[in-house]
């Protein structure tokens, strides 16, 4: 029972982090209908930037966070302006492949700039694990969870109430209609990419702080696909719920099944869960089926 609770709690914490990263994906998808396969690489860049400012330049933690978010926004902006802007109206496969190509470029550049050494962050938070009474949670995970949830809340509020957020939602609903209502759709696309990149970069910082950083950190990004598919690609609430489901189930599966398979279950479990759920609900748990027209 103790083990179960331990796995459950750390699963929830991991799920919170997944939710933040998935949000980075959903924000972009919702506004632009682009599947960003480079979300993991945005994370990785965020983590490396944080490492550079914090460990190599000795900048204090709060300014570092602000700098990371600024840089991520610039990255998202540049990516949208230089690449995705040219892909408007292209078939899905081209858009997917362009983001895959982008992720390859980002991985290569990261290795050239930072080398492919494994690095770890200087301690950001008190080392003592958080005692919930019935279980202990690693401090990096606990703080990571708290920051993720705060960030998710902020993003959700922006999307729901801020003027730009409302415009983004309008764009998501109907691009042409939004355009004719005087919303600058292209600006919205850029805005969405910047926001999505910030969310992913923050997620990367948290993941890097938990497990260290290397150019393969982006591989965690693959796990957001089960998360967002379960939650429905365009639902912020769904991303959060999907994050928790995947976080908890993969942790339980890893904890109980790893001894039988010799490890690695955590990496594959999200996909198995996703396939099982998709077989029952082909549009995920919250996604809605489009009414197709002729």
């Amino acid at each position, binding site marked *: 029972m103790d083990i179960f609770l331990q796995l459950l709690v750390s699963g929830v914490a991991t799920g919170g982090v997944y939710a933040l990263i998935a949000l980075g994906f959903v924000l972009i998808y919702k506004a632009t209908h682009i599947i960003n396969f480079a979300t993991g690489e945005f994370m990785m860049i965020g983590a490396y930037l944080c490492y550079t400012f914090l460990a190599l330049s000795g900048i204090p933690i709060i300014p570092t966070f602000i700098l990371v978010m600024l840089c991520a926004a610039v990255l998202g902006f540049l990516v949208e302006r230089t690449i995705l802007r040219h892909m408007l109206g292209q078939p899905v496969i081209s858009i997917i492949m362009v983001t895959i190509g982008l992720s*390859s470029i980002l991985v290569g550049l990261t290795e050239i700039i930072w080398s492919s050494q494994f690095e770890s962050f200087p301690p950001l938070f008190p080392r003592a694990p958080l005692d919930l009474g019935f279980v202990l949670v690693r401090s990096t995970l606990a703080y990571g969870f708290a920051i993720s949830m705060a960030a998710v809340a902020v993003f959700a509020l922006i999307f729901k109430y801020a003027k730009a957020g409302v415009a983004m939602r309008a764009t998501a609903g109907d691009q042409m209609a939004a355009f004719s209502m005087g919303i600058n759709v292209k600006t919205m696309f850029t805005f969405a990419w910047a926001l999505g990149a910030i969310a992913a970069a923050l997620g990367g910082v948290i993941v890097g702080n938990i497990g260290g950083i290397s150019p393969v950190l982006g591989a965690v990004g693959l796990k957001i696909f089960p998360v967002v598919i379960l939650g429905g690609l365009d639902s912020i609430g769904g991303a959060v719920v999907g994050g928790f489901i995947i976080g908890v189930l993969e942790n339980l599966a890893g904890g109980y099944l790893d001894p039988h398979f010799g490890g690695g279950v955590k990496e594959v479990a999200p996909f198995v869960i996703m396939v099982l759920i998709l077989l029952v609900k082909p549009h995920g748990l919250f996604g809605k089926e489009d009414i197709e027209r002729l």
Partner: protein
Amino acid sequence: MRIGDFKETYAADEAVFRTGTVRLWLGLLGLALAVFPFVAGEYLIYMANITGVAVVGAVGLNVLTGFTGQISLGHAAFMGVGAYTSAILTTRLGLPFLLTLPLSGVVAALCGLIVGAPSMRMKGLYLCIATLAAQVILDFTFVHWESMTHGIRGINLPPPSIFGLSLAGGQAFYFVIVTLAALAVTACRNIFRTRVGRAFIAIRDRDISAELMGINLFRYKLYAFGVSSFLAGMAGCLLANLLKVVTPEHFPLQLSIQYLAMIIVGGLGSILGSIFGAIFMTVVPEILRSSLGLLQGLDPQIMRYLFPLQTVIFGLLIVVFLVFEPHGLAEMWRRLKAYFRLWPFEY
């Protein structure tokens, strides 16, 4: 300049190679391919063999993704299934190469059908992610089904032979690979001369109206998955017998992406493009490697950048082609031909 290309029968108009000139060039190409292993060194033959395997795999992926519009991120895993099938059948049951080759295709095709089955209810991105799941799950299986796959240590294969004739050397195996690649290309080209190929393209272009035109979407999507993974399995079997070893590391997600890159660079929905793409994506990294090798004298550290630089260039190629030449090398080839057809009287 070629003019006066008139056809008197519909059969002549429907032929793939429509003029004597084209057939002559094709004959010359065949001759060059036949002579090549006798004049080329071991390294070039090895490169040709790797390229040949890539052609088989890329044509297969193009049928599914380029022609039928179903994006697959699991192509490498299907190649893995073929490779493991051939390795296991060879080492456990001692089956000859000529049997393991088609069997690898069949087993991979069965896996492909299972992965394609959800296409009845899912499409587009959802299906794409389902193929990603197949890649991840099969990858896990290769590593962890120790009793069958020997985990990360992999399986070593004995040199293949056909009717007692050993194919141990690259030269002998070259002929197997080239023949098979030619067969695969011809068969796939043939598909698109019949109703089956037209149905594939119709599904890609507009699946709803395809169904209203009398096409059973599910059946034809499964066909596409079947053909594609069958060829992937055979390519995997060829690769296993070429390298004489199979490990999970040979079939990562990265390889699936590389095959997608081949058909994008070569030309989505073009058989010829699959060949161009396979050659291009195999040869360019080699050129890059050797040119960086030349620079090594200037700065011994430079090889450290080789791998990341390859990654960057790989990504750039995908992006640049998609943005500037979405129809790939095949389209550039077509323009080149159109230019020379009228040359020197362009106007």
